Structure formats: structure tokens, C-alpha cells
């Protein structure tokens, strides 16, 4: 059997794949957090709940309306994005004039309330969501067995990340977003409706989280707690990447996912804390994060 650093190659590649999958979710979630933080200056603690809502929306759509995975992958982010837009427009936007801490407290409270409600309605244990038939099964790559759905998650997450990056860096709308991140008052004085831009941005972040949630539903179980389980790690990812850097959030998401996966191979005991250890080191050496602009 092929060995790499004293570890069977298959175990190594298997964990690498799991790292890539977790990294995909980290990237999608930290990307949304970074976009929201950049423009709204709000640390969106409700991000994990929006991810959970995405998974639940997909599951409930299937249960009650027979809407399959493929439609849910589009509909669920739209529904959760719309929900985010309503939250921003009627509640969050009232807090911008106050200290940024209020935005954090509000989204934290929102997260607790929604999570509690879903726990009350559906219990704390997870519910399964079947892998869509077209992506079921696996394929033998020769050096390892690849479940097709997991490969799909990696590819489609990467595409979603690149798509979001292109939207922000290469389009007219993206230039408004970037400019408003630098100087919202001037952009508004130029005749751009910045309040609507803020609503759109929050909805975009929430929609991305929901998209990750639908992708995650067949991999993990759909549970009210799935958001709080992942969001702490995602905050660490954002801190490592540097607040406000879009590409930084994406790259760091994948990097830390892989770092976590490989730690499982080489020193399993540390796999749960490796991301936080990296975060601590980065905070000590580069407080603005690896890709932070103020570094």
C-alpha cells in the first residue's frame, strides 16, 4: 500500500476530501460574513441560523410540497435571502446609527430566538435529507473511493464562491458595493440608493448561507443546531482571513478546512482545536488577518 508520511495514502486522501468539503462550507459562509461586515459593519451572528434555515427550507419544501433538491437549491436561498432583506430593512437598519455592538447583539438575539423556535418545533436531533438520485453512489478514482455528492459539493461551492467574487470585483453593482464599503456617504451623494444596497447585501449574505445549508443537508443531518456548530469555526476563519477581504475569506475557508482534515490524519486529538490554534497564532503575528487590508 502506498504510504505518505507514514500514513496510508487512502486515509490521507479521504481526510483531504473531508477537509475540502468542510472548507467549502467554511468558504461559502465566511464569504457571506465578510461581504456583510464590509458594507454594513455588522458582525452577523445570525449567519449560522441562516445556514440552518437554508437546510430546513429545503427539507420542508420536500416534505410539504414535494419540491426536489434541484429546485430547493435555488428556491431556498431566495426564500432565506428575502427573509434577510425583511430583517435588514425593518430591524437591523434601525441600529446603524448606534454603536456596532448593537448590530452584533441584535443578530445574536435573532439567532438564539430562531434556533430556539426550531428546536421547539423539530427537536434537537437531526433529520435526514436524501442525496438526490442523480448524485447518489460513488466512483472509484483508483487511489480512493469518491462519493459523487461530495465531489459535487466541492465543485459547486467553488463555482458559487467564484461567481460571488466576480459579482463583486467585475460588475457595475460590485463597483457600487466596493465604493460604498469605502465611503457610503459619497456614493449616496452621487445618486446611488445606498440603503437599498445594504438591504441587497444582507440578503445576498443570507442567501449564500442558505445555499451552503442546502448543500450541507445531505452531508450532515438537518438539525436546528447545525448552524451554531459551524458558525464558531467560521468566525475563526474570518478572523484568520482578515475582516472585509472577499478573496481572503474564500481562500482561508478552504485552507483551514484542509488543515483541519489533515490534522485528523496526523494528530486526530488536535483536529477540533487546530483552527483556533491557527487563529491565535495569526492574531499574534498579523492582527489584521492573512489577507487583511490594514496589515
Amino acid at each position, binding site marked *: 500500500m502506498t504510504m505518505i508520511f507514514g500514513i496510508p495514502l487512502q486515509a490521507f486522501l479521504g481526510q483531504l476530501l473531508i477537509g475540502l468539503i468542510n472548507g467549502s462550507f467554511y468558504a461559502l459562509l465566511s464569504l457571506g460574513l465578510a461581504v456583510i461586515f464590509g458594507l454594513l459593519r455588522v458582525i452577523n451572528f445570525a449567519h449560522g441560523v441562516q445556514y440552518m434555515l437554508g437546510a430546513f427550507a429545503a427539507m420542508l419544501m420536500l416534505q410539504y410540497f414535494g419540491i426536489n433538491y434541484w429546485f430547493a437549491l435555488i428556491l431556498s436561498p431566495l426564500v432565506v435571502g428575502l427573509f434577510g432583506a425583511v430583517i435588514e430593512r425593518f430591524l437591523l437598519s434601525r441600529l446603524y446609527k448606534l454603536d456596532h455592538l448593537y448590530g452584533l447583539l441584535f443578530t445574536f438575539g435573532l439567532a438564539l430566538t430562531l434556533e430556539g423556535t426550531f428546536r421547539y418545533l423539530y427537536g434537537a436531533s437531526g433529520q435526514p435529507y436524501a442525496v438526490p438520485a442523480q448524485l447518489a453512489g460513488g466512483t472509484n478514482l483508483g487511489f480512493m473511493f469518491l462519493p459523487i455528492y461530495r465531489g459535487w459539493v466541492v465543485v459547486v461551492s467553488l463555482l458559487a464562491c467564484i461567481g460571488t467574487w466576480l459579482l463583486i470585483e467585475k460588475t457595475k453593482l460590485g463597483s457600487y458595493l*466596493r465604493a460604498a464599503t469605502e*465611503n457610503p456617504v459619497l456614493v449616496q*451623494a452621487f445618486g446611488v440608493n445606498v440603503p437599498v444596497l445594504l438591504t441587497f447585501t444582507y440578503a445576498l449574505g443570507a442567501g449564500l448561507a442558505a445555499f451552503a445549508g442546502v448543500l450541507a443537508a445531505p452531508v450532515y443531518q438537518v438539525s436546528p443546531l447545525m448552524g451554531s456548530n459551524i458558525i464558531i469555526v467560521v468566525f475563526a476563519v474570518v478572523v484568520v482571513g482578515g475582516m472585509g477581504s472577499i478573496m481572503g475569506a474564500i481562500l482561508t475557508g478552504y485552507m483551514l478546512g484542509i488543515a483541519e482534515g489533515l490534522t485528523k490524519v496526523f494528530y486526530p486529538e488536535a483536529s477540533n482545536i487546530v483552527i483556533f490554534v491557527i487563529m491565535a497564532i495569526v492574531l499574534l503575528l498579523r492582527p489584521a488577518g492573512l489577507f487583511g487590508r490594514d496589515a
Partner: protein
Amino acid sequence: MAKPLLEVSNLNAWYGESHVLHGVNMTVGEGETITILGRNGVGKTTTLRTIVGIIRERKGEIRFDGKDMLGVPLHKTAHAGIGFVPEERGIFSTLTVEENLTLPPVVAQGGMPIEEIYELFPNLKERRSSPGTKLSGGEQQMLAIARILRTGVKLLILDEPTEGLAPVIVQRIGEVLKTLKERGMTVLLVEQNFRFASRIADRFYLMDHGQMVSEFPVSELPQRMDTLHKVLGV
């Protein structure tokens, strides 16, 4: 005097608790170039920012093109026809030169087409894909003015356009403003540089303690020079 485009009467403004404009009165006629003079801290920049609507704590009257502007939200000011070039220029570092140039939405017909802007400012064309803040100070000022020209606004408001720039660039900005004037643009600017202002302005307002204390046409500038030097302490 030409038909008034901008009429400001008894304008008061506040920064939180501190009352900074104490009843500003001024008129800008269509096609005129008006310069506000005054020492540092008398409220010149505040006057511009209050007219644009960036400072929202304001009372009094601002009429633009006959329309009451006090209740107009900030993002509608440009659509009413007012363009603003701030003192710090406001070039965005995460946007390329061309993205900076095309950022402000076109609000009316009659704006300068982008090809013409590039003819007027060839440097901007050469460096269209570099980040906006990689330009020199003078080029950034040209960009800040150029991006408003595209939008078709009727009134161009400039806050100290020559501040910190080399004489040759100052001269170039003067030429650009003259060209604009020939095309019928109305311009309101704050300026410390007399020589520059005297070449382009039709009328002057002198400001002190949050009010306009005198007003005179450019023809009276020579005879007022001594007083102005004393008042402005330059």
C-alpha cells in the same frame, strides 16, 4: 444677473450639538461661477456639504432649480442636478480609474460622453485600469471632476480643487473649469487660491462665523485685495 439656479436663504446647520451655519444667504445664477472665500473653520466646507445634503441637521431654505431641497434624501440630490467633488476627492482605492469614472450614475442628458472626457484628460485614459488611488494627486483631482461631468448635472460643487497641487496642475484645472463654463455649467467652489479664483469666478462671497458677510463681482476684486488679505490673514 442670470436666472437663479441655486437659492440659499437663512440656512442653519449643526454638527450634533454645535451650531456651525448661522443663516447663510447666497444665490448662484445659471451659468455663473461663484467662489466662497473665508478663513479656515468659518463654515465654507460645511456650507457645501449642507447644500449637497450630506449634513442632514439643517434648517432654512435651499431651492435648486425652483425645487425645495430640504426634504430630498441624499441619494436624490444628484438626480436633482447637483454634482459634488469633495475636498478629500473621494477616489476609491478598490475601484479602477475607469470604475471610478463611471461610478456616479448619469442623472440627465447633456453629460460629457466618456470619449470626450478621455480627450480632455488623456492621462486618465492611459491609466484607466490602474487602481484609482495609484494616480497622482493632480490626476485624482481631474478624475474627481471628470466623473461628475459624465453625469449631466447642472451645478458642479467643488471643495478646494487646487489644494496641495502643483502650479501647472492648478492651471490645468483652471482651463478645465473655463471650458465647462463655456459649455454653460454652473459652478460653486470654495477656494483659498485668489489668483486661481480670480481667473474663473464671476462673483465672490466672503464668509465668516457661519455667515456670508459680503458679496462682490470679480471686477471689484483688485480694490478689495487689501481688505481681503487682512480678513483672510494670507
